[in-house]
């Protein structure tokens, strides 16, 4: 089976600015994949190259085996992209836009049932005849997502689909996207809500300054990079040197240690006992993607 998306050595510069510095990535069919990274990391640039909106400086990308430049017609038919920018056509209503969008891809009246399903799934049914201009911001975002799905593409790319969207829609949207994933669609998304990525995606790539700095299953990333966090309230003390390396952060007598396993808890506690430091309070947290994210890409100054 051809990978849903295959990215080989993509570089992109805008004038002197190197937005992408050699990105390689393979996403298999049926995956639910997250592309994470701080503002300006190059996520949208990568997606726009995939979609054919931007030309790569070097490197190539294929969608289910079709090169996005050489075989752009086949590649684009297989791809549905939700742009990050909230754009809309003020001349038409929601259903018209969806029919047009499907039509551009060669879908005819046989596709109308699918259009209704999208409207239903995204809670747009009662807005079907509303002009795009008159939709609220969140509704416009839904319509934008619906447009990307109009031709029922097997590979779906969502660039921050939940930006500026209320909790209810986020839930509704993810239910709908999860259903599409169960039906076999490959899903790739970017988001700044890391808990979303953690809950939904089986694999994650983290980008920083145009490069992928981590690529693994969500579970492995959590284990490898963050493990567990031990937060101790100790008051105003000097930590023993032996446990200094484990310290992640410190604020006013509260110390947070990043630990790989439970054995290290015992190690920290006994070191404190030997130094005669009293533990006032203690909290043990499972790490989440945010910790991984911060430890990998948090430091913007290097």
């Amino acid at each position, binding site marked *: 089976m051809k990978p849903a998306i295959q990215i080989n050595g993509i570089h992109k510069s805008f004038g002197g600015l190197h937005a992408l510095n050699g990105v390689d990535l393979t996403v298999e069919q049926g995956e639910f994949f997250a592309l994470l990274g701080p503002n300006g990391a190059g996520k949208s640039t990568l997606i726009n190259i995939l979609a054919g909106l931007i*030309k790569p400086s070097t490197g190539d990308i294929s969608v289910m085996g079709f090169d996005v430049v050489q075989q752009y017609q086949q590649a684009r038919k297989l791809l549905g992209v939700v742009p990050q920018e909230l754009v809309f056509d003020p001349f038409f209503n929601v259903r018209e836009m969806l029919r047009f969008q499907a039509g551009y891809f060669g879908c005819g009246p046989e596709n109308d049932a699918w259009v209704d399903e999208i409207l239903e799934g995204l809670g747009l049914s009662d807005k079907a005849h509303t002009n795009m201009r008159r939709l609220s911001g969140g509704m416009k975002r839904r319509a934008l997502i619906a447009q990307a799905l109009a031709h029922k593409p097997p590979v779906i790319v969502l660039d921050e689909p939940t930006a500026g969207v209320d909790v209810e829609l986020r839930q509704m949207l993810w239910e709908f996207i999860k259903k599409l994933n169960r039906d076999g669609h490959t899903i790739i998304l970017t988001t700044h809500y890391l808990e979303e990525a953690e809950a939904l995606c089986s694999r994650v790539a983290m980008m920083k300054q145009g490069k992928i700095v981590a690529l693994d299953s969500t579970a492995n990333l959590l284990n490898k990079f963050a493990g567990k966090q031990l937060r101790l309230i100790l008051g105003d003390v000097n930590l023993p040197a032996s446990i200094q390396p484990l310290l992640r952060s410190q604020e006013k007598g509260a110390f947070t240690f990043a630990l790989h396993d439970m054995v290290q808890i015992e190690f920290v506690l006994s070191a404190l006992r030997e130094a005669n430091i009293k533990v006032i309070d203690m909290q043990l947290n499972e790490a989440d993607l945010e910790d991984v994210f911060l430890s990998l890409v948090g430091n913007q100054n290097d």
Partner: protein
Amino acid sequence: MTKLALISSEFRGPWTLFKKELLRFWRVSFQTVAAPVITALLYLLIFSHVLERHVQVYDGVPYTAFLIPGLIMMSVLQNAFANSSSSLIQSKVMGNLVFVLLTPLTHFQFFMAFLLAAIIRGLVVGLCIYLIAMWFIALPIANPWLIFAFAFFGSALLGTFGIIAGIWADRFDQMAAFQNFIIMPLSFLSGVFYSIHSLPPFWQKVSQLNPFFYMIDGFRYGFFGKGDVSPLISLSIVGTSFLVLAWLTLKMLKSGYKLRA
């Protein structure tokens, strides 16, 4: 929608884009058709009233009759240009052109859809002015094929020019500059209101460099059977200009100039 079932899925993409472009101006036909028709009729009223008794262009042709084909053609050209250029600049500024750029439509299909919609807008406006002008004065028709050919290729030429302007301009004010510094002067100095034979020799030469002159003159020839130059020369100039601009537009679209960074 049912008639679409007959159309193969291959053809459906460009057909949809064409239909959307048609609907886009038809939905606001008050501005896109009625307004230019009224403008042309105002010109007709004012100029024919002021000049009827003073200007004799061709023997036996009243000035008002001389004026009407020129006004029709000027409106055809301006509206064909306006259709493709304003659709593109609006979609670019609003950002919704991405919906078309994401599709498998080829650059040729993209070109054809915008071009045909522009031609139809030009022809619809021209036809409306013609039908209304018929109430004022009867025009002869010497050669209907010439009339149609000039209207068709003229609007194709300007529709193509509008696509180029729409691709090139990034902002509305740049588009307005195109409109005010190229389209308007060329159309007013093309012999809509006079025959270039009434001009001093130098300005006759200058007029002959203006492609609008050939479109207007040839179109008018279709009505009266006479003009300033042979209609076949005019038609070949208009046709060649169209082919050159179409080739340029297709090259721009294929390279992704200004549309795909």
